């Protein structure tokens, strides 16, 4: 299926999480810290909060969200 990562179309397999899709797309960075450093999924189970992203207009955890066709995923913030 196609999802949009920072407005770029990415082909990913069905049934994977957004966190997995980030890795699949070649960079697992999920967001930036207050000082501008990259952050990426760490615990993979919804605890560490490092993979919070803007997903279809909502703040969500990439590791707890399954990809669906046409999903808009943004790394900003």
């Amino acid at each position, binding site marked *: 299926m196609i999802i949009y990562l920072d407005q770029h179309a990415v082909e990913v397999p069905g049934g994977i999480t957004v966190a997995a899709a980030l890795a699949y797309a070649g960079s697992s960075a999920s967001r930036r810290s*207050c000082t501008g450093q990259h952050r990426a999924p760490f615990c993979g189970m919804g605890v560490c*909060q490092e993979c*919070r992203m803007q997903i279809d207009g909502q*703040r*969500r*955890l990439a590791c707890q969200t399954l990809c669906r066709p046409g999903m808009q995923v943004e790394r900003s*913030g």
Partner: protein
Amino acid sequence: MTTQAIVIGAGIVGAACAAALAQRGAKVLVLDDGRGGATGAGMGHLVAMDDNPAELALTHYSLGLWQGLRAQLPERCAYRGCGTLWLAADEQEMALAMGKQALLAEQGVASEALGTQRLAQLEPMLRAGLAGALKVPGDAIVYAPAAAAWLLQQAAGVTLRPATVQAVQGRQVTLQGGERLAADIVVLANGFGAKALLPALALRPKKGHLLITDRYPGRVSHQLVELGYAASAHHSEGTSVAFNVQARPTGQLLVGSSRQFDTLETRVEPAVLARMLARAVAYLPALAGLNAIRAWTGFRAATPDGLPMLGEHPEQPGLWLALGHEGLGVTTAPGSAQLLCALMFGNAPLIDARPYAPGRFAEGQAA
């Protein structure tokens, strides 16, 4: 001859005391056990509190000193002059707001009464139909751990040493492991940790919960506090919650507040957190749809009358106390430090020091 001082505790109060002593030419050794206290756990709200004249005098004096530091504070201290909105749910609370305005004005603290519509314009995330608010524009926020570290760094003649103090007797300090230190002045500024060194101190722990959300910039602009906060803040028994939300410069919302006595259990208690959040959602309904990323607890060091102990220990000359700031230590640290130094060096403090005298509690309780 140079005054030698030891300050125990590198939180905001200890750091302010060390900086004030250094300003007066003292050589200061700051000892801290690194366990962290109320400075790192609290909100960092710089607020004029008016529950009694002494509290207002110390908070107002301190806010002026923070204003003076503002231009020098590095960005990591995240100082923002956001002001406080004291929210009135109904006409009865609006009457309280007007009373508060009069009390603040007596000390020269400016405030502005806002009606329903003006409040809704300023903070559209608040639930509709609140009666209004009292806006105190001089209040601010600061990231207290960074401010404490900065106060220590910028002062000449201050050395910070990681060490655990085992005992204090007058001007003598014994470290874990047996090393003994002495100074002309010893300042105890380690919050509730002081109780372990001086068990008779009239300090009780008052547990609080806080929660922080993900970043949602632009949703809230002021520190928002319900007018019933003071009533909750001054309960001396049982568990109470009050609405208190701060917009961090990152756009995160820092949500409080709760109070519990006589527990030192550090874990987050879901039942208390749930009550606190239900209160917050009653004021900010859309908060329920936002993501929280962390919750934690901390302990305020509370005295029987809610005022700090600032002065020399009544029975141990050379040992000075800067303790019991409860939830206001970040606000009152600079004023407390100046007042304490004035007493140490025999100058007249700029505000009346008597309400904070450590010996004011019943014999055997304070010391």
